[in-house]
């Protein structure tokens, strides 16, 4: 299975450019969509799940044209929207049952089995009789992922799935996803939390202000930040100056002041040490440079 996106653009109300000339290929496995809020991630996802029409461009999913073959595409898709809190007056299992019915499991017995299994899998079996609207935030997200997964979709689209989850839930959610990613399934995961991506994604795309700024492996992104990630020691008075001048990733208290991790092409006048960059560093480096220096081109993919 493959998703091909060509010259995709979306303009809202004739003015606001949400997506601009996106070219992207997505293959099986987990695909991360990274970018700050408002970068266009949700727009792209909503287009992919047929909730919205692109202004221009072409998308084919598994060979089906997104504009014309919505039925086939919808049959392949499981979608978890970014906001997933308000339910109709249905019990947990009923909501899942509804989704299962719509996903094409017509046989009542089969559906009951599938629903129960899924409830087990996401750990909601004990609350199956509870009204979906009465579930806790985490449970609701789990129900969300359950309804997206039911019917074994070929493409799973999850928009900011970890928002509102506690760390433990976040971990188990990541594990759930990586379990799913084995096989032919495409999982598209959008997030503005770098941590969500680093452990699971094989490939990712970086969006900023509607434009695709990077597409490739996480390692590729990290490589680009190599040589620009520094560990700097600073005293109190210097810390403010550093913060004002450079994008600071993190600060730790040290014996004579602070240990500051930051991104910079180079840095003078400080006690510095080069750091092995992580995805988070790479992301910040990339975003900073994109914002700060227009000269940088993005032919990385």
């Amino acid at each position: 299975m493959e998703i091909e996106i060509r010259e995709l653009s979306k303009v809202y109300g004739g003015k606001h450019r949400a997506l601009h000339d996106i070219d992207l290929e997505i293959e099986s496995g987990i695909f991360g969509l990274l970018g700050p809020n408002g970068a266009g991630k949700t727009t792209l996802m909503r287009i992919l799940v047929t909730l919205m029409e692109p202004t221009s461009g072409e998308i084919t999913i598994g060979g089906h044209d997104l504009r014309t073959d919505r039925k086939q595409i919808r049959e392949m898709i499981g979608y978890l929207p970014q906001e997933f809190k308000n339910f109709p007056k249905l019990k947990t299992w009923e909501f899942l049952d509804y989704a299962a019915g719509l996903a094409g499991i017509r046989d009542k017995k089969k559906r009951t089995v599938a629903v129960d299994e899924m409830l087990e899998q996401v750990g909601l079996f004990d609350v199956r009789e509870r009204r979906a609207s009465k579930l806790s935030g985490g449970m609701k997200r789990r129900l969300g992922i359950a309804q997206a997964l039911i019917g074994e979709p070929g493409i799973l689209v999850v928009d900011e799935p970890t928002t509102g989850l506690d760390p433990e839930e976040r971990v188990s959610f990541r594990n759930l996803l990586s379990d799913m990613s084995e096989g032919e399934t495409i999982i598209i995961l959008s997030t503005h939390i770098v941590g969500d991506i680093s452990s699971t994604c094989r490939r990712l795309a970086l969006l900023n202000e509607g434009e695709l700024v990077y597409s490739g492996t996480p390692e590729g992104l990290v490589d680009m930040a190599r040589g620009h990630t520094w560990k700097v020691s600073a005293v109190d008075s210097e810390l403010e100056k550093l913060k004002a001048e450079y994008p600071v990733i993190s600060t730790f208290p040290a014996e004579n002041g602070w240990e500051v991790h930051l991104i910079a092409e180079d840095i003078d006048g400080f006690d510095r040490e080069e750091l092995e960059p992580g995805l988070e560093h790479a992301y910040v480096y990339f975003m900073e440079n994109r914002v700060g220096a227009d000269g940088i081109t993005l032919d990385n993919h």
Partner: protein
Amino acid sequence: MITGSGNIWTVARFEAKTLFRSWFFRIFSILALVLIAIAGIPLFTGIAPVPWEFRGIPSSLPYMNILLLNVIQAVIAIFISSDFLKRDRKLDTTEAIYTRPVSNLEYVVGKISAVFFAFLILNVAVLIISLVYNIFFADVSIMPLPYLLYPLVISLPTVLFILGLSSLMMVTIKNQAVTFIVLLGYVATTLFYLSTRFYNLFDYLGFNVPLFYSDITGFSGWSELLMHRGIYFCLGAAFILVTVLAMKRLPQSRASRRICLVLAPVFLAAAVLLAGSFISGERAVDQARETMKTINGKATGVPALDIDNCSISLEHRGNRIEAEAGISFQNRAGEAVSEYLFNLNPGLNVERITGGGKELPFKRNYHLITVTPPSPLLPREQDSLTITYSGSIDESACYPGIEPDKIREEYRITFFCVKKRYAFIEDRYLLLTPEAHWYPESGPGYRWDKPAYGNTDFRNFELDINTSPSLSVVSQGKVNGENGRFRVRPGASLPGLTVTAGKYITRSIEVDSLQLSLHTMEGHDYFLEYFDQIGDTLGDIIMEEKSEYESKVGFSYPYPELKLVEVPISFFSYDKISTMGFETVQPEMVLLPEMGLNLQGADFRRRAWFQKRRDERRNQTTPGIEKQADNLSSFITEALTGELTPPEFRRRASAEVSYNLFPCYYTHVNHIDSFSYPVLNTALESYLAENLESGPSRFARFFSGVTDNERANMELADRSMRDIMMDPESRDILSYVLNLKGKHLFRLIGSRTGEEELNNHIRSVLAENMFSEIEGEKFVAQISDRFGIDMASYIDNWFTRSSVPGFLISGIENYQFVRDERTRYQVRFKVLNGSEVDGIVKITLSKSGGRRGFGPRFGRRRQEDDVSTERYVFLGAGQARDVGFVLNYQPAVMTVDMMVSRNLPAVIEHQLGEFDIIKSPSPLEGIREIDRSDIRDPDAGTIVVDNEDDRFSSMDKEETSLLKKVLPEFWKPEQEHKYSGLRYWSTSNRWKATISSKFYGKYIRSAHFISPGDGDIKASWKAEIPESGYYDVYCYISRIRTPWGRRRERDKPSLGSNYYIIYHDDGTEETGIDVDSAAEGWNFLGSYYFSAGEARIEITNQGEGRFIIADAVKWVAQ
């Protein structure tokens, strides 16, 4: 398609679940069910005074309940459908659902189906409630079909339409609150304003659609019904499809989108087409009238042919008849006739006309048949023809004299709307009356230039009829036969023949050589159990009723038989100008409504219940046999022998049909046939039937301000009867004008010839000419000759003059005295005809008040001990009379009926009160001519200002209610005359005029009234004071009682105080007067000094009673 229906099912299942869990739906549904169940207790159990139609027919239960539910479900549906779209938008989880492989069509259809399912359950619940009432309380069996049909014809189209409309509004307006308000406004507009306007096209709730399901013929007018409901079904479907197209979700299936794109316009077009053909169906009556008017406009003079014999052989085949009518006729014109003119219902197709063994050429033009005989028919010569025809009855051609708007007026029996039908040719039922014109008649039929002319040929009818073997035939005279073949041989010449065939069960009894038979439908014998004890006395009861009736009418029943025939409730008839009789009463035959609906006396269960209650209250036990006898005679009185027309109050509420037997005594027996004085026949009818009339209901006064007779008088004040008759706008009042003027004509003549002499003369002429026409000119000439008067000029004057008399009554005195050792009672008064026109007044003195209320008089027998005395007083223009009565009983009330006059009220009631004992009286018995100067004006030498005078003025406050200001004119109820009813619950803060015998006034006894307020609204009387000086000031007080409520409460003080402001030379004086304790008449307010010039007295709306009344004030110089 399988996945499609699967998806619909899935969506519907979950939508239904959420719907049933919605509190809004739960609360409303439970409320609706509880409401309907509770409403059933008074309506369907017979324990409350609720009309008979609620239990008399089994379809009324599901009809009423589904109709009630329909209003509720329309509101719920608006909310639900706007809600599910709103919910879709509001719930973020919907997005996950939207990405599922469901087409928009499936999704919306699924949702709508769920709502339908919910409503289905609600409908079924309501039907179960109806069924329970049906089983336990109704007097009739259960009809299963209506239970199925009502939800289909009422709920289905309404719910679909309102769901479609509100979803569409929701996707276009996108705001639930706005959608809700707009739609509720729409519901209110259709219910309260559009209602039956525009051919009832906007009645999506089906409130005014005739849906009464007859036990005999089922729904009448299926096609019209299906068209009307179909409009809303199609509109609903179209709106839903448009909703699918406009839905804010990317479409998935091109096929289903295409289906919507194709079907939406198809449904829309279907709705428009249905509406078009519905309207053209409704307008068929206009077209029929236009066509007939054009054709008949060419006819002149009297129809030349007088049909003597009519022998019909009729085949009744399903919804068609095939007939052959052999007619023989005579030329009554003064010249030879070369073309024969007949009329026959245009729905009947003439196939062949033969005469003298040969086929004759003929022309058919709509209802007309023109036959060319081989040679012209010479005067007084006879000829005969056989006309073969077939088809059905085109009912739009019936009652051509009735305006289309009147025809389209709904026929509503309280809650239930009934289709008006004038003839039935159906598989299981046949009913043909003369108005259907189902056999050929001479001449062109109704003449627009002579609306009062009824061409009545008394004929010898014969009828051989073949119908379905399961039906039996009822018609006039002897009916013999079986297995669907019957011979009908009437015993006398008839003006028209009526035939009906149905599953009739006949019960007969012979009473004093009168064969009385009752023909009711199978299963409609609910009444038997209420008369099981009076089998032996049945004849006596009927005899008693009969002789009492005949003593009032002054005729004996002319036929050997009387057949009471049950006909479908839809059978409707109008009052025609040419006769007072209704189509429901035919020679020796009365067509009673199905199950006696329309006749409250037919509700024997409720009567029995009331009788029981009364016995309990009085702590007595009336024997069952007495109760049953009472039941029977009340029924006979109400239906057949009581008042000629139903009381005004009730007539407005339901059908205006009468079943009074009077036409069997006069209308179908005699006919004054006059082409030059066509109204003469109706006038005579009114005169002869006068004893059958009831006085005006006092409720009419309180409801509408004036009685129908007064409205007729107000019409006559400016226009002649001829003008009124030719004005279609006045059609509503015409029958009252005719009645009033008819009586007046003969009373006027009677005052010249002697009442009794005239009456005897007329009755002997009628007796000599039974079952044949009387030439009008001859009738008039005979009266003129016999009494030496010029009756023709009386009639001319009466017909063309546009002025009415006015009477002043004064000096009423009453006392008792002893003469010949017996106490006698004198009532005496003076009356003046102050106008330029001759007039007549009718004086009635009665021992009891003789007042009547409205509604069925359960268990109340006629007041046997009531005695009354009547006298007519003729007064030429400007003449005055002294009128005296010496009676040997003490009368309580004197009523002066001024008949045709400009007086308001037209009937004055005067309570006589105490009779003082006078030792040496000089009583008057009879009428004494006096000079008009002998009449002393009691107010002479004083200055009186009445509210009818120019010098009275009422000030109104600006309308403060914003709603009333904003509402356009057409929302305001029509008020066709100046006077309002004194309805204390709807008094307003505007001065309105109202009439009562008790008020001060010369010709018009009226006053202005207003609801009590804080004293800021005033009315004033102004007078020109001739000389300065001290004057006594009086106001006129009358204690008005309203007829509502229990007697005790009616008599309780309810008027409080009135406050007058007197403007005099020393300032202003405000003075109050306690109306409840004041004497009636002039009340002294005080003495004040007034300078010459204008003086003024005001009344304010300050007070605490039910209303403030401003009548008259006077200044009396000291």
